[in-house]
């Protein structure tokens, strides 16, 4: 699965996208796996209320299942317009 990061999350983690092999059943389980990797991930994902998630380019909840998902994007709250 491709995991994408945008805006300040991309800056904190230090890369825009990576391929992740994961057994995570839900987005939140993926967050836990990433947090456990390195300090920069733990810091970036410290407060998930500051983040949203898009599963295969559609906004989803952190409890959303990851079965069959190709692209999981973590994104800060949006500021368009």
């Amino acid at each position, binding site marked *: 699965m491709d995991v994408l990061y945008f*805006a*300040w999350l991309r800056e904190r983690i230090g890369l825009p996208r990576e391929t992740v092999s994961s057994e995570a059943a839900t987005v939140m389980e993926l967050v836990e796996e990433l947090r456990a990797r390195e300090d920069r991930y733990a810091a970036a994902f410290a407060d998930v209320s500051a983040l949203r998630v898009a599963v295969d380019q559609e906004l989803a909840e952190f409890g959303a299942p990851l079965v069959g998902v190709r692209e999981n*994007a973590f*994104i*800060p709250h*949006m*500021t*368009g*317009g």
Partner: protein
Amino acid sequence: MRVVVQNAPFDLGAEAAGFAAGCTTSGAIVTFTGIVRDVAGGLETMEIEHYPGMTEAALTGIAKEAVTRWSLEDALVIHRHGALAPHEMIMMVATAAPHRKDAFEAAEFLMDYLKSRAPFWKREVTAEGADWVAAKDTDEEALKRW
């Protein structure tokens, strides 16, 4: 219905005229334009990041919803990304409906939704450094109206 995501500037007059020319049954056309604003002073550029693919899909979904809810004859959304200077145009929406109330409401709906449901992120660059613009609670509150 047309949704455009681009780096290049757009010609507000030409876009508005072209949109109006394509409408044959509407009595009201509303356009809204967003401009880069130097809120604190000293803004050098406003950088707008987006999520290619999802951005177009999200904007299309929001525009379709507006067309359906207000029975619009047509809707247009143009949103730029990349580095913009103060006073440059960031985006525009246009809506066409039989009466002005629907055209105004649909334009407000488009603005409220694209502010917090289309994946764009603003970053303000000044001589002191760069900061991501924080989303406001009022942006999320605004959606409850619809």
